[in-house]
């Protein structure tokens, strides 16, 4: 029996009171693609950061090819043949590809001979794995997909035999995902070992031969991928059975209540990000807006919700102009008209994370009764309201006095949703409602959005998660480079088609 290329035994790691990894055991075999799956906060990234030497385990042993090793820093791990592609790329944006790759492994004090050799070696690696990267280009000019390839190339150049990828597909288009998977398969062919951390069940089924499941810091099971299925894995991840498909009835959309005509919006740097957008959202429908991050969705959503001035065009709510070139309704007035907004970046715009939960639960509505009277906040009413909605939206823990940043991402999102949905808005603008939210909470949030729709609300859903757009929307539009490049009725469309639209090639 060949010893596994990577073996973890009884790994423990705590951050303060949080026991992030409890007695973790894991065996990974050479030449396989091994999936590690679990909800956000299950401890996957912590575990892999220990393997990469970024964190040190409180106890436990790590063996590589049967030999016990101590990993005190990323340097030790790199020299032991471990490479890691982080979720947030570890690249210096204003450096060239070459500079990023040689960083820390320059091999000489003054650049000269070794730099030329590095270029040669890198060109060969690029050819072998068909990475197709220009070494001289600057990182900030590269697309996300290419930046990820640079990370992979960086690890390979440093001699990685085991390549760990942390949530690699979160920021990619379906086409880029295909490309990535091709690269990973060819790495496997060459005998490399790949560890794939993800919360996406499809990827596990597609790519891996073995899968390990983590829940709340513990390893709850190891499976051969061929002998399991998505439902089983989801249940292991969450600890109870989960509905992967949303129960959604077909409704008949009513009149258009929110309309956008010839909208042009610029960002803070005066770059035109929304070029010419026309949209209608009807009563009782969810309109999904798909697109790769950075194609103008953020600016569009900000303009629609009254926090960004528009350059030209017109936005109408119930046939009343709420925004044009000269002036626009601020969010307070829009709220009074029945429009609610769940912002994309919940920590920056949706919440004051240093404030208590009950304060965040009423922001924007704090000046209304029953929360205040004659400009004085009524604490008792606020607290009893908070308790009520926290129950209703299953916010955990149910502590209205807890500082908001101490809630998990999913529960923070529930705080925003309960605030915005409580007034039964007629138009709801939602940005990335489940980004960084775990599977159990996603199910809950999706169900709430469907309920709102069934009550007749007009909902705009902006999401980079294609699966989310597909499972919730009645109608889908795709945004690319500031324009709406396609509109589809949900039931007639595949993710392939949408992917092509998102990439701007269709």
């Amino acid at each position, binding site marked *: 029996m060949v010893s596994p290329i990577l073996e973890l035994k009884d790994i423990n790691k705590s*951050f303060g009171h949080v026991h992030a990894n409890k007695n973790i055991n894991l065996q990974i075999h050479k030449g396989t693609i091994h999936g590690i799956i679990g909800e956000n906060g299950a401890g996957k990234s912590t575990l892999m950061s220990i393997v*990469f030497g*970024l*964190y040190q385990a409180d106890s436990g042993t790590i063996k590589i090819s049967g030999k016990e090793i101590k990993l005190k*820093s*990323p*340097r*030790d*791990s*790199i*020299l032991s043949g471990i490479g*890691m592609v*982080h979720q*947030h790329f*570890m*690249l*210096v*944006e*204003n*450096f060239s590809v070459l*500079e*990023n790759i*040689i*960083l*820390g*492994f*320059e091999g*000489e*004090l*003054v*650049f000269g001979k070794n730099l030329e050799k590095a270029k040669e070696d890198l060109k060969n690696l690029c050819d072998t794995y068909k990475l197709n990267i220009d070494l001289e280009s600057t990182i900030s000019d590269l697309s996300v997909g290419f930046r990820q390839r640079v990370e992979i190339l960086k690890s390979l150049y440093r001699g990685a035999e085991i390549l760990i990828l942390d949530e690699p597909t979160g920021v990619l288009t379906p086409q880029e995902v295909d490309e990535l998977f091709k690269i990973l398969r060819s790495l496997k062919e060459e005998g490399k070992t790949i560890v794939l951390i993800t919360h996406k069940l499809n990827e596990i089924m597609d790519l891996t031969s073995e899968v390990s499941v983590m829940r709340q810091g513990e390893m709850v099971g190891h499976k051969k991928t061929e002998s399991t299925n998505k439902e089983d894995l989801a249940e292991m991840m969450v600890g109870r059975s989960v509905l992967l498909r949303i129960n959604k009835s077909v409704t008949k959309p009513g009149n258009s209540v929110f309309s956008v005509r010839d909208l042009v919006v610029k960002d803070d740097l005066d770059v035109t990000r929304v070029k010419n957008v026309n949209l209608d959202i009807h009563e009782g429908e969810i309109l999904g807006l798909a697109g790769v991050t950075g194609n103008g969705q953020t600016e569009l959503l900000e303009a629609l919700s009254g926090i960004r001035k528009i350059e030209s065009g017109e936005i109408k709510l119930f046939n009343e102009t709420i925004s044009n070139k000269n002036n626009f309704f601020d969010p307070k007035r829009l709220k009074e008209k029945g429009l609610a907004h769940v912002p994309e970046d919940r920590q920056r715009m949706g919440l004051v994370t240093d404030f208590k939960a009950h304060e965040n639960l009423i922001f924007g509505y704090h000046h209304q009764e029953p929360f205040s009277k004659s400009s004085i906040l009524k604490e008792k009413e606020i607290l009893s309201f908070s308790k009520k909605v926290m129950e209703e939206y299953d916010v955990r823990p149910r502590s209205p006095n807890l500082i908001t940043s101490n809630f998990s991402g999913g529960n923070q999102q529930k705080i925003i949703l309960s605030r915005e949905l409580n007034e039964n808005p007629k138009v709801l603008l939602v940005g990335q409602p489940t980004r960084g939210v775990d599977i159990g909470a996603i199910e809950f949030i999706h169900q709430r959005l469907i309920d709102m729709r069934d009550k007749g609300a007009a909902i705009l859903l902006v999401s980079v998660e294609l699966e989310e757009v597909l499972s919730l929307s009645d109608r889908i539009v795709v945004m690319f480079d500031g324009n709406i490049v396609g509109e589809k009725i949900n039931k007639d469309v595949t993710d392939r088609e949408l992917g092509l639209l998102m990439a701007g090639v269709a």
Partner: protein
Amino acid sequence: MDSLADIASLLNSTFRISTPLVFAAMAGLFAERSGVIDFGLEGKMLAAAFVAAVGAYFFGSPWIGLLLAILACVSLSMLHGFASVTHKGDQVVSCVAINILMIGLTTALAAAWFGQAGLTPTLTSEQRFLEITLPFADALQNVPIIGLVYSDIISGHYIFVYIAYLSVPIVFWIVFKTSFGLRLRAVGENPSAVDTAGINVFSMRYKALMVNGVLIAFAGAHLSTAVNANFFREMSAGRGYLALAALIFGKWHPKTALIACLLFGFTDALQIRLQGVELPMIGTIPVQLIQAIPYILTVVLLAGFVGKAIAPNAIGQPYIKER
């Protein structure tokens, strides 16, 4: 030929006056490129000036004074690092503490040791650096153009002036052509990338601060043991801040920072030259107004003409590895 001589003397003073600015800007460049704000250039320059003067006086050699000044400044930089790199304190607060401490400490020590608040004894010519006449400068004095440029502008400066201008291409070479420079720039842009590349972020920042201490010591020694023959209270006179402005104005790049330093030095030289001079049409400009020129220029340049100065991405942020 009178106006030519005027210009030559104006340029000569420009180079002299810019010297401490150049040292300070290069010192600041190392710290800030590594991601550590150095608002404390002023205090360190003051400390160096004091220590250099005292050292030269006690040991009878300006070189020993310089050496002690380097030790003092490196220690202060390490203190800044200890507070803001190791203990992740606020970098600006740490710098302000150093600046205020040095104003008080130098004055108090001068009073305690020499009985004069804020003054050190005047150094003899053996105890200080003297102006260097370059070879053939006297012989070429009367050759047209060459004489003017070589003998009147380039020759006859203190050693620090030559070191300062020589340091700029060396700094450029270190920062952009060596692996140390690559790591330095990376650690100021994205320390996580440096950490995951297997380099210790903290030790990189300490190394940068060490170079910073050495360079700023030259600026102080130049003030008290070369252009002046003693230390006096607050003799750095805001040059540390001005150098920082030049560094920002120069977008953290050695070449452009040098140009900014020279520009500030030139306006200062000009204001000295213009004092009491009667200009056609305008008449005599009040001294106070003339003296304000360099500072007005600083504000105007920083406010509008520089374009957006993009600082190293991670500047001012202590590196925190674990959540």
